[in-house]
């Protein structure tokens, strides 16, 4: 009996989560962290990790008490666990796929990324260790990561800090940052990604 119940719960969670479930839950994460006395912002962890690795003695930007950010590092660690659990135990019968639109599948095929509707992996095959041996892969993985880390700190926040926390608090600077996110994203999507494949 209890086993049937657990299977039911597992299958329920294993469905793809629609946007109207994911969005309000993200706001809940923000609220829970506010209640605990903290502001939701994942990219701050890169700074904390730099500080913890010794950058605090090299530059005053990293002279922070990273232990005061322990809570945030634990949220990031939890996200690692969450990714493990979701991907290992909560995958639906369709497999670990991204349910992207037909239009996107067509666009991807046009730029030479071969995918089939219904079998689009959540993480593309070109994001893998062997991709690092090509300049395209290196640009996407190391270059993309670098820009995310640089830009997030320059802008003072990432998707969680600006798009969610900042806009929820009606912060004009966050709106400007999010407009910046989209300008950068559009330029790369239309003028760079098509030439990488």
């Amino acid at each position, binding site marked *: 009996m209890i086993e049937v119940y657990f299977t039911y719960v597992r299958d329920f*969670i294993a469905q*793809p*989560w629609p*946007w*109207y479930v*994911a*969005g309000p*839950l*993200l*706001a809940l*994460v*923000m609220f829970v*962290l*506010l*209640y605990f006395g903290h502001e939701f912002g994942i*990219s701050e962890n890169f*700074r904390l990790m730099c500080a913890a690795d010794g950058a605090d003695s090299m*530059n005053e*930007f990293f002279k922070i008490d990273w232990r005061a950010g322990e*809570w945030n590092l*634990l*949220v*990031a660690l*939890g*996200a690692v*666990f*969450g*990714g493990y659990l*979701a*991907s290992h135990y*909560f995958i639906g019968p369709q497999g670990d796929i991204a349910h*992207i*639109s037909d*239009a996107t599948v067509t666009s991807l095929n046009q730029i030479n990324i071969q995918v089939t509707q219904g079998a689009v992996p959540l*993480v593309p095959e070109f*994001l*893998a*260790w062997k991709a*690092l041996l090509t300049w395209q892969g290196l640009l996407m*993985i190391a270059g993309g*990561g670098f820009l*995310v*880390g640089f*830009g997030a*700190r*320059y802008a003072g*926040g990432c998707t969680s800090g600006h798009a969610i926390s900042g*806009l*929820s608090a*009606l912060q004009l*600077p966050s709106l400007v*940052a999010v407009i*910046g*996110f989209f*300008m*950068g*994203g559009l330029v*790369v*999507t239309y003028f760079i*990604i098509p030439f990488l494949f």
Partner: protein
Amino acid sequence: MRMSRYILVGILLGFILYKSEAASWFRIYEMFRFQSFHMFGIIGSAIISGIIIVQIIKKRHIKNQEGQEIVIKDKSNTYPRYIIGGFIFGCGWAIAGACPAPMFILLGAGHTVFIVYLIAAMTGTFVYGLLRRRIPH
């Protein structure tokens, strides 16, 4: 343990972004091509719910667990950093197909190459720290 609740929040965050596919490169590409409402729905409904939550916090003077009123600090009003930094972040978001939280989540999902993402993002943050005084804010 008092700190373990943050791990639970992180696990929830991991489930949200993994199961809604917001951690997928393809979903980010789709968003920037405006080919689905999905990502806009996630971000939009998060913001609308967030605005409601923040307004209730302000109106009712809701306190955090330490008994202090919850105050959300205003972001500084110097705009170049938001537009330039935001633009750079957006470039990285689109090309890497992952913002910071999904990097941690996908690493946990077994895509070990995301270690390289994290090291690259730390390097980017470090370089920002070095250049901070010389670039416009």
